[in-house]
């Protein structure tokens, strides 16, 4: 707000597109659902910790799916967990986004051929918006992915009627 500080005498008005305003507010505070399924979670924690601090770009960890906008699937998703991941995704309120973090969540990773118990990519059960490759990805990669997600949110047109 630095640009506008102390520039107005009385009541003030800004003219903007409603959609852009909505997108701007949504893209700058995508709270993410805090859970990790495997070792990628360590890097996710590092990204949330003070050195990288993804709270700077609006990502605040929430412990309940009801309060979250983004689900970061951090790590291997087993068959047993896949059912629960799907249930948690369904509990999140719209609009909701998914970031598949690491090679396990994107494609099964090292378990892609012989892991009888591993889901070969979380996109089999839930729609994924951003894939972050790496095993595990460094916090920088995750932040890059999250910024990509913010760009994606900015380009959305939530109020425009979808043409068939």
């Amino acid at each position, binding site marked *: 707000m630095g640009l506008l500080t102390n520039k107005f005498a009385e009541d003030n008005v800004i003219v903007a597109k409603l959609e852009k305003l909505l997108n701007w507010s949504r893209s700058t505070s995508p709270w993410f659902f805090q859970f990790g399924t495997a070792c990628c979670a360590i890097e996710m924690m590092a990204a949330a910790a003070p050195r990288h601090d993804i709270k700077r770009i609006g990502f605040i960890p929430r412990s309940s799916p009801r309060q979250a906008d983004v689900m970061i699937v951090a790590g291997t998703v087993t*068959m047993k967990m*896949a059912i629960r991941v799907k249930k948690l995704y369904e509990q999140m309120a719209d609009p909701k986004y998914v970031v598949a973090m690491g090679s396990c969540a994107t494609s099964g990773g090292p378990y*892609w051929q012989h892991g*009888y118990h591993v889901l070969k990519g979380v996109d089999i059960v839930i729609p994924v918006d951003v894939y972050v490759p790496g095993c595990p990805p460094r916090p920088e990669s995750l932040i890059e992915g999250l910024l990509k997600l913010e760009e994606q949110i900015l380009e959305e047109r939530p109020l425009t009627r979808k043409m068939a």
Partner: protein
Amino acid sequence: MSQEQEILIAKLVNKGLDGDMDSVNACEDRIVRGKAKAMIMKVKKGTVERPPVPVSPGEESSSKVPDSLSKDDMIALLVNKGLDGDMDSVNACDDRIVRGKAKAMIVKVKKGTAERPEMPLEITESTEDNSQNDIKVEKVQDPFQEIKKMIEEKFPDDIDEGSEDKYIYFKPDNWLNIAKWLFSDTSLLFNSLQCQMGIDMGEDILESRYNLHSMKHDHYLEVRIRVPRSNAKIPSVEQVWRIADWFERETYDMLGIEYSGHRDLRRILLPSDWEGWPLRKDYQEPETYHGIVVPKMKEGWD
């Protein structure tokens, strides 16, 4: 070249010239071995004189040590030493069984419930200065052989074929009784089950292995039990070693070995409605699970 190596070379050359080439070849130091062989050739040709047989200090001292001591003598010796205040020698004994028995006896003698044993005759002269050496003599004894002998005496019908130096095969039927005995017998006292695992050996054989350890005597035993795939039933030892509870659940989860008598035999890692036993060699991966289709190959993979 150090003095030690030179002595070793001289020794090996003498052995080789006397026809004992095996000891020369068995030498682990490459340089020493090569030099010794070269010298042997030279001596045979006549270009070098045969070196004198060296006398190493190590051999002199070891010749004072008695060749062998029976177990009872060893215990008697240690008890005497311990009662004379030299507990270090007792603790330095490598044989766990002997050490344990000696310590137990010391306590008894101190209480007055047992008499002090006589010093074994053959070593009374030389014990004073060589206490370290005569204790090391006992190290040759392998505790496993002792344990195996005890088991063979107690359960002669339950030992399965295939037992070797480091492990013992049992038939499954009487395993619970054997386990109780291994756990409680005072000279064995296997009070710790360090690991339990299952293996598919192929050819319709499943194997369950137990690594036992005695905290008291510090000796080890590996027990193996093999069962056919069609009738994979082994008595559970969950009530003998409590840790076996989860170990056996995992082996059941992965290999489908049924531990009869287990009070809570459920899958431990996989979901309870999973079909099949994944670590068996004939396992077929499921195509779907709760409506989730498992693709063998995803699009774009090669």
